[in-house]
């Protein structure tokens, strides 16, 4: 009854659970991107209200955006320094490999597991950030919701309300109804 979420990829920008996966193959070289919805939106890769599925994945402008983001991420990874400093962006200056068991940071990000007890101190910041992201995701209203436009939020709430009524969860339904009233 454990390890249910093992194997879920993390967003390569913020470390939250990824929901959008992109694979780009240029001249036989494969680049994978895993992003959460918020980061994808921030990078201009995701706007469900204005783009159709085909438009999202095929127009030239979109391709350029993906190219740019992949380049940024590759350059960012190459610029990583081994020294540990307090104020660093996620994955920036942290050790990317445990010196004891040689477990890699990217393995932790993709599997959520650690290699040995020493990994706890090596990847302490990453573990802390992940725990924070998890608790944020479990909170009733998250940052993503706050950043949404009113029509998007309204349609999402209406869907959740219908689902709550269908499963006879009237407590949640009442809360969602009140939230909808506030929006209107």
């Amino acid at each position, binding site marked *: 009854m454990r390890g249910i979420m093992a194997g879920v990829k993390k967003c390569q920008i913020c470390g939250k659970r990824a929901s959008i996966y992109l694979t780009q193959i240029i001249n036989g070289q494969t680049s994978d991107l895993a992003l959460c919805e918020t980061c994808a939106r921030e990078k201009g890769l995701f706007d469900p209200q204005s783009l159709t599925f085909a438009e999202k994945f095929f127009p030239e402008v979109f391709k350029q955006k993906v190219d740019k983001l992949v380049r940024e991420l590759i350059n960012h990874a190459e610029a990583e320094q081994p020294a540990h400093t307090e104020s660093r962006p996620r994955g920036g200056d942290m050790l990317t490999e445990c010196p004891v068991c040689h477990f890699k940071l990217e393995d932790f990000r993709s599997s959520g597991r*650690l*290699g040995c007890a020493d990994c706890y101190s090596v990847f302490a910041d990453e573990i802390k950030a*992940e725990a924070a992201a998890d608790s944020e995701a479990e909170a009733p209203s998250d940052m993503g919701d706050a950043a949404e436009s009113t029509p998007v939020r309204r349609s999402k709430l209406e869907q959740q309300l219908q689902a709550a009524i269908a499963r006879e*969860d009237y407590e949640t339904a009442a809360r969602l109804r009140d939230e909808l009233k506030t929006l209107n």
Partner: protein
Amino acid sequence: MAFNKESILNTCPPWFRRAGSANDVILGVMGRLVRNLRGHAFPGWSTAEGRRAVAELLLPAIRRCPGFKSAHCAEMSELDYGMRRALLERRQISPCMAARQDGCHLIISKRQDTVVMVNEEEHLVIHSFNSGHDFRALTERLNHLPSVLEQEFEFAATPRNGYLTSLPNEAGEGVQLYAVLHLPALTLSNMMPQVNRAIEKLQLNIAPFYPQYGEECGNAYVVYTAPAIYGTMGEITEHLRDIIFRLAERENQVRDRLLDMHRLGDHFLADRVNRSYGLLRYACTLSQQEWVEAISMLRLGVCCRFISPTEGTEEELLGELAGQLIRGGDYATGSAIPERAYPRQATEPEKSRSKTIQTLLNRTTLHTAPGA
């Protein structure tokens, strides 16, 4: 002691036999305790050599512990598919352990109430079982081996994170407790969705005991704590105990309501119990799912006095039915019975069930009115 497959499979663990003897609703309790050794990579990341090194350290120390001197020991690579499946069905090993090979060892105590796994997801994993709701005996048995090993080895732990595990969000006390509940009245009254929501809000989890046959098979459920729930072992135990006793109380209230409805002429409950009795009495072959469903209703019938024992006490009969409900009919091949059209040759587990049914039914009397 070598691993005696026949002895393990042919012997019913005592905790099965005495399951639920202390309570109509709580069939049994289970516990899982995990520990890792400092200075060794976790089993999921280490090589076969690394796992063997950990096993060479832990195994002699475990065998020296009281209660494990005559235990069944085997490396997982020595166990065939059928044995692994049987142990998995009996909840004695985890799915992860069932898939393990070299360097991973299994130790089952002679009474089969404690199972030690070396190099499962963590270096040391202990599963322990107890009938009824005796959490004290369970936690004592769970803590016994680590407390002895702690004198010899240093477990990976920090004051901030507690005992360290391969999944950082499971680090902490390193203990998970499970309670198996029989909730037929709540299930028949369609109240399980509300129960599920309430349990989730109380930082506990609930899952069906037979998930392979759907959410409500056998009306048996497992309520369990999250691995890294904050607090000491005592606090975790108290929290779970409090919740399962409330659930048991609610289940009994709903049973009373169903009985009141029966007295007012609504024979819904009697119909369900009598149908199951008839199925057990007259069906030639039964699948595991049918068996579990029928045993569940038979047990409800005994609790509600539709059925009474002709020999022995009611408590003994309830305990036996609870044991049958947890066992699920038969081991190893029970859930692998192919669905075939009748008439056909009965499979071995079905023959075994048929024998058990006859023994059980010969000891029971069906009443048309409860409390007779």
